[in-house]
């Protein structure tokens, strides 16, 4: 097969051709969307339309959307708000939040959340990383135990803020956000979910989830890189992260990245139109790949939850074979995947997500993530199923680890 087979959609997606057309047209809309003249107003209207598309997709109000440069900025913005005056600027806010210093974060978050949480720890917060079970589901018992500090008087045990991702990028496990959020609210805490892997793949409805903040990224749903959004529930405290402009009600300075935002809007429109078709398509191919690998390769382990999992994601460990070596052999066969191996990360530590699920370092080093997308075909999956067993056999053949 001469064509490359791209199975790394969780890392980033290609542009949808319709999004690409809109994006290219929008590149000529050079006027500043904040300008009062007709040229500027045309761009502003298109940005507003994009805002409506995104809010429609996640069932928010357009006024609850802040466009950002992407998921990392959105996540940083929420965390930095916890350090800001936004939490104490009125008497009622001060009463609710001033004496709360406990922050809860799941142990399988993206590094931008992990690092933001560690920053809060340095600033004097009590940050607790929530354990997950073997399938990557947050330990509800431990979670409720930590939230119970709300009834005491020790500020370090009183929860201020919880951040738990909706769907994990590596193993695809989907959390029960509505329930987790409900418990946080009962304890008086604010709740954020990083939903960059969920939006466009599974239904995301901010009203039924009940969250205060939700992060979206454009390039995970066939829009360009460099654009994303933060949903902020009306009334939830939020502080500007990039200061110095009146854009987004003064909450996000910087001239509007109009072409990317407009393209993002189109991607949201398509995601909505696509609806269940995306999940149906990717799930059937993902299951074909999963079942094929299980039947053709001995001694493998499928990571992540069997049911509460993104329809497009398959994470598998191959004892005896190392992930970077597998990835590069697949690469030479024309197949693009990713791995939780330390060798691929440039550090000596393997995936913190797999380690958190308790699979052990060897299985983490030997893990491969396949993430499928809209344009994945059965032929591509069958090609992988034909070629892949020999790769594992070869690597296991010269491994010191018997399998």
């Amino acid at each position, binding site marked *: 097969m001469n064509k490359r087979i791209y199975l790394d959609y969780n890392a980033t997606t290609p542009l949808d051709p319709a999004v690409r057309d809109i994006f290219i047209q929008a590149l000529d809309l050079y006027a500043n969307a904040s300008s009062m003249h007709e040229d500027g107003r045309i761009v502003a209207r298109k940005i507003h339309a994009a805002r409506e598309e995104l809010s429609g997709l996640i069932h928010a109000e357009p006024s609850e959307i802040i466009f950002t440069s992407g998921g990392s900025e959105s996540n940083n913005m929420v965390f930095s708000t916890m350090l800001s005056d936004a939490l104490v600027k009125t008497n009622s806010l001060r009463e609710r939040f001033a004496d709360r210093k406990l922050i809860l974060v799941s142990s399988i978050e993206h590094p931008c959340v992990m690092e933001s949480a560690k920053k809060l720890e340095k600033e004097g917060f009590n940050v607790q990383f929530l354990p997950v079970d073997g399938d990557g589901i947050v330990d509800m018992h431990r979670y409720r135990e930590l939230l119970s500090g709300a009834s005491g008087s020790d500020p370090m045990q009183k929860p201020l803020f919880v951040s738990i991702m909706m769907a994990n990028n590596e193993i695809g496990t989907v959390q029960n956000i509505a329930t987790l959020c409900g418990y946080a609210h009962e304890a008086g805490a604010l709740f954020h979910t990083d939903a960059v892997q969920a939006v466009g793949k599974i239904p995301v409805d901010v009203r039924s989830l009940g969250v205060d903040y939700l992060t979206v990224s454009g390039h995970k749903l066939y829009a360009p890189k460099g654009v994303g959004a933060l949903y902020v529930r009306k009334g939830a405290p939020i502080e500007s992260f990039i200061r110095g402009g009146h854009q987004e009600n003064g909450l996000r300075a910087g001239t509007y990245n109009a072409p990317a935002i407009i393209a993002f809007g189109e991607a949201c429109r398509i995601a909505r139109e696509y609806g269940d078709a995306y999940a149906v398509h990717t799930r059937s191919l993902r299951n074909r790949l999963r079942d094929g690998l299980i039947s053709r390769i001995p001694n493998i382990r499928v990571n992540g939850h069997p049911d509460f999992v993104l329809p497009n994601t398959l994470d598998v460990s191959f004892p*005896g*074979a*190392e992930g970077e070596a597998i990835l590069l*052999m697949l*690469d030479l066969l024309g197949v693009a995947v990713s791995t939780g*191996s330390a060798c691929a990360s440039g550090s*000596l530590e393997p995936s913190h997500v797999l380690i958190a699920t308790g699979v052990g370092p060897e299985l983490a080093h030997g893990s491969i993530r396949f993430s499928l997308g809209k344009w994945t075909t059965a032929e591509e999956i069958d090609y992988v199923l034909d070629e892949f067993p020999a790769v594992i056999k070869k690597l296991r053949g010269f*491994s*010191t680890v018997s399998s």
Partner: protein
Amino acid sequence: MNDWLYSDVVKDHFMHPKNVLEDTEESWPCDGRGIVGNIRCGDQMLILLRITDGKISDVRWKTYGCASAIASTSILSEAIKGMTIEDAYVLKPEDIVSKLGGLPANKIHCSVLGDKALRAAIDDYLAKNNLPSLAGKEHAEVICTCLNVTDRDIENAYKAGDRTWEDLQARTKIGTVCGGCKEQALELLHQLEHLYGE
């Protein structure tokens, strides 16, 4: 494919490794056996040597690890055939890296394993045959230039239980004059943890 992550030599040895032990260890009787690294850290190498008249006559190996670990063991196995054990004992990681046409900086520790596994195999051969040890003959790089503390001194200190900069200083006096070697020494300590980690 252009612009591959590694050199063409690495790619070739990765895809077509030489002298791999195809069958069980029992199927290939050897004179010296060395194994280093651990799976927990993501790399492990086994080297088997046949030695005739003080020279390495044949070699087989197995590796659990990334592409550069596989390629570096393969190229090492080619390089040492016909070599005297004294010459093989002083092979430096840089010798392997240069034969591979270079490696990304964060991959150097992988080939560091190759020379250590080789020395372990030679040590095993010498011990089994009651021959004088070559320990101490291997190449050593000075890390602390003020007090002449080498990477080998640090490795010995690690094996003796040192895990922190303070431990190392107490034992070797490293970095107690200008302190300029601290970063390099800690990096080495990190690699040793990778190599021998519990």
